[in-house]
């Protein structure tokens, strides 16, 4: 069975060119970059080239890039590192209700440990209001953390305006750009960003690698203690092959970003419109047009539950994701959809398709052919459906 992967916001395949490069550094140029000898020096050189490649994609200097084990570690480092470094100045943090768990849970951990936290609401499209940020700022605010675009509904946040506010008030500004790196142009300088989280496995690089951009001069306490790697910001033997793969992935995606973005928008709209046309009682989650990530489709399909949809799609080889509680193991559905005002039962029936560079129009056609049948079958089983249509 041909498999159709439409879950690129969860993770992506590694580009073959990237994987081949990594192999060399796993098996031949395997030195520890801290070593004096030639094995160490060749690893160091490649590591620094990767740092340059990552920096270039976001308009930073290489010295401002700290490699981590992924987006989650970078988010934790950004938030706890700032809290620890700045706690003398204040203890108030601002974030939004639609952040990734790596940001929200970290902020909530701090809230349980002596910090104060303001969690900003979002509108029905999942977007934070700049005015809300302005009103939340206090003299003791030390951090504003708002993501660049949301991983579930693709809502792009007003980062430039929030960055401006943060700058005016000399507050450290952290942006989780895991879902936008290589998809939307980022320039940390123009955008007044102090800390920026990126992750490799969302851009056809390897899992287990990420980076935190730390603007020169920004104070940040380290969290991993040890061998003083990454200029003491992040100790631990560097994941050289992974980092080199990440660097290469940045270079490759940077080159094709514009073209790929345009291509995905066409597929996205085809899929989204096709679903609306073919299936009744469907609601699109997240903004339309400019404010939506090019690769994100998110719909709530009423009267059916998300995991059932996923399983049914999977039996046809189609991989997607859902905001249903059942896929997370918790009882509540997606905190993002709830924050946008969706009621539980509708949130449970949400479905996300996230596009990638290998997806084709034929694949979208296939999904549009199959999904209505699946929904029909599940709705025939659903006690909610007949109640609703008999009303």
């Amino acid at each position, binding site marked *: 069975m041909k498999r159709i992967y439409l879950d690129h916001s969860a993770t992506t395949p590694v580009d073959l060119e990237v994987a081949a490069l990594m192999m060399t550094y796993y098996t031949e140029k395997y030195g520890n970059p801290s070593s004096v000898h030639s094995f160490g020096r060749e690893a160091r050189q490649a590591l620094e080239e990767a740092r340059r490649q990552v920096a270039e994609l976001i308009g930073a200097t290489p010295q401002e890039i700290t490699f981590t084990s992924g987006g989650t570690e970078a988010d934790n480092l950004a938030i706890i590192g700032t809290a620890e470094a700045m706690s003398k100045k204040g203890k108030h943090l601002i974030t939004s209700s639609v952040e990734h768990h790596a940001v929200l849970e970290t902020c909530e951990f701090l809230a349980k440990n002596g910090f104060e936290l303001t969690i900003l609401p979002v509108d029905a499209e999942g977007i934070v209001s700049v005015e809300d940020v302005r009103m939340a700022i206090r003299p003791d605010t030390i951090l504003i953390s708002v993501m660049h675009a949301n991983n579930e509904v693709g809502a792009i946040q007003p980062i430039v305006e929030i960055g401006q506010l943060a700058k005016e008030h000399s507050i450290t500004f952290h942006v989780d750009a895991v879902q936008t790196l290589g998809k939307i142009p980022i320039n940390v300088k123009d955008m007044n960003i102090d800390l920026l989280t990126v992750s490799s496995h969302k851009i056809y690089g390897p899992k287990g690698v990420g980076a935190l951009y730390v603007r020169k001069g920004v104070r940040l306490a380290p969290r991993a203690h040890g061998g003083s790697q990454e200029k003491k910001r992040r100790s631990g033997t560097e994941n050289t092959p992974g980092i080199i793969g990440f660097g290469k992935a940045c270079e490759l995606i940077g080159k094709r970003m514009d073209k790929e973005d345009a291509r995905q928008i066409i597929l996205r709209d085809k899929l989204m419109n096709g679903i609306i046309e073919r299936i009744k009682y469907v609601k699109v989650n997240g903004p339309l047009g400019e404010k939506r990530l090019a690769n994100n489709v998110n719909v709530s399909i009423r*009267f*059916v*539950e*998300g*995991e*059932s949809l996923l*399983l049914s799609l999977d*039996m046809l080889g189609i991989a997607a994701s859902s905001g*249903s*509680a*059942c896929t997370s*193991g918790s*009882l509540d*559905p997606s905190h993002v959809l709830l924050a946008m005002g969706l009621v*539980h*039962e509708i949130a*449970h029936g949400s479905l996300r398709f996230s596009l990638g560079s290998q997806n084709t129009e034929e694949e979208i056609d296939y999904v549009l052919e199959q999904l209505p049948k699946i929904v029909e079958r599940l709705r*025939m*089983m*659903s*006690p*909610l459906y*007949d109640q609703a249509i008999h009303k």
Partner: protein
Amino acid sequence: MYSEKVMDHFTNPRNVGEIENPDGVGEVGNAKCGDIMRIYLDIKGDIIEDVKFKTFGCGAAVATSSMVTEMVKGKTIEEALVISNAAVAEALGGLPPAKMHCSNLAADALHSAIQNYKDKQKKE
């Protein structure tokens, strides 16, 4: 994640549907937590002659509903009342730990339908 048996019952659920003028109906769960199971019973004497279900929920919810209907068809009410959620899960070859509590309610729905039948009997 799911056993083959669960996937089989999810893909080809037994006894989906409604019974018109059923002798008993039971419903458990709510849309808020993502699972609703409704069971319809047709009872002759003490025997469950027919049973149907409708379920909104995840794979485990559908599969347990389907399984419980298979388990009780042709059984007496007494036999049906001793079927537990755990027994349904076992009959399916087990469920993932995360699903044991939230989606494994089909026996409850069955018991609720039997109770509904008994309540009606009393009134008559």
